[in-house]
């Protein structure tokens, strides 16, 4: 195994993981509303899937920063 790989500190994968979750969260908010609500029976706020995805991703960022 390459020595440089073994020398990477373990906070690097932690940062990558946090960026994956944060990136996913930001990306969902760039989806148009018409796509998120497509075919939904109404446009109530709880049907906006971006809100729920954001909640999950924030929980995950907290977990990955804690452990």
């Amino acid at each position, binding site marked *: 195994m390459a020595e440089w*790989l073994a020398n990477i500190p373990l906070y690097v994968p*932690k940062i990558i*993981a946090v960026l*994956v979750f944060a990136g996913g969260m930001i990306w969902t908010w760039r989806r*148009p509303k018409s796509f998120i609500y497509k*075919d939904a029976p109404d446009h109530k706020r709880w049907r906006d899937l971006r809100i*729920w995805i954001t909640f999950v991703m924030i929980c995950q960022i907290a977990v990955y920063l804690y452990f």
Partner: protein
Amino acid sequence: MHGIDMFIVISYLVAIPAFGFYFKRFIKTGQDYFLAGRMLPFWVISMSIIGTQIGATDFVGAAGGAYRFGIAQAHFEWIGALPAMMISALLFIPYYWKAGVYTVPEFLGKRYNLTVRIMLAILWVFWMIFFLGVLFWTAGLMLNEYLGLPIWLCLVATALIVGIYTITGGLAAVAMTDVIQTVVMFIGGIALSALGVWALGGWTPMVEKIIPTNPQHFHLFLPVDHDTYPWTGVLFGLAFVMSPAWWCCNQAMIQRALGARSEWDAKAGMVFAMFPKMLIPFVTVLPGLIALAMNPNLLGANMDKAFPWLIKNLLPTGLAGLVFASFMAALISSVDSILNSTATLLTRDIYQRLFVRDKPDKHYLDVGRILTLVFIILAIILAPLTKLFPGIFVAGATMLSLFQGPTFGITLLGIYWKRATRWGGMFGLIGGVICSSILFWGLHWKFLDIAWWSFMTSVILNIVISLLTPAEPVEKLKNLVYGLVMTGDE
């Protein structure tokens, strides 16, 4: 097992098939049977996805993994699932649902060619048959261990419990029973974890007991030279390839969303499944850590007995029956879904496409039911063989990691690159599977690393060969490719 526990378990095992059998009355056509008539609401899809994904082997395996490696085992439920579920919901499921297909290979057959469709269907069916054998054997062992019945009787009982509603009610019965089984699974699992943490005096005392002898057990990322979960494998193999492949291309996962009553329900089903998914480590991983804090003397292969050890040594009468019922719920909800998906793949992608094409819909409904029965009988025959030839079945189950990377590669390019051609897809799939076979059997690489490199091989081959062959006509790609569907909404 105490009388009260026995009563809880037997009541549960009788109630589930009775409830599932009720849905037989709604099955009139092939679409009713294979896709629940495309009438599933999002909450049923969510619960069914979780019920399908978590099997009894996860309970035992994840608790054993946590006992051995610590909280890193939770990667499979967190970074190894949640980002992929989001991608599946917003990037893949809308295309599958819009295309009106029954299976993922059917979608790829429309996008590439018949060879890709048949190859993928055969690979999935083979893997599912191996996996069914393993699941049936696990169920037989569990019933044998806790109810004291002979093993052959336990296998037949499992077949009856699952067969009654899976053969008659199709996906609707499978999905609706999964809802109940997922609730039971969580109640039993959380009760076990809560009781364990309480018995240890809380979270902090538990951590303080484990840390002195296992300093890495509360670190999510492990060093790059770790035998099983190096952080490079976790990120590049699991998070970036294996989990998107599982959540975006696995028929057993996607079939629920294909049965949704609307595109929003299909997407929401996957998004809302992220909530229970996030909590699963509290049901599967935490018991392993509790067992380690209570009894650090399980060594070697005995580490996988962390979960059964906890059930035997921690639970009072009544609760043991409930946890065992949740254990069975996890198992049955996986078996029924895989049976249904295997029958769907074989009926739609092989029987209807290659052998008998123009029969009335009722014919394919009957074929689906007969094939489900055939797979149940096959699983009963294969189950004892998992004991006799464990190597074959481990290899069969590992086979999934050999074609998951290439499958994800051709699906990703198929939807998001208009220029991908039938030849690119075909050679991308074949080349990726050959690459992973060489890495697995020839060089004995770790499965997480194999997933990444077979995915990359598949993508590179697909791009190179697609650029060397004529582009697909735009008419063929409509409703299948990004930019040619849902105009203005993408």
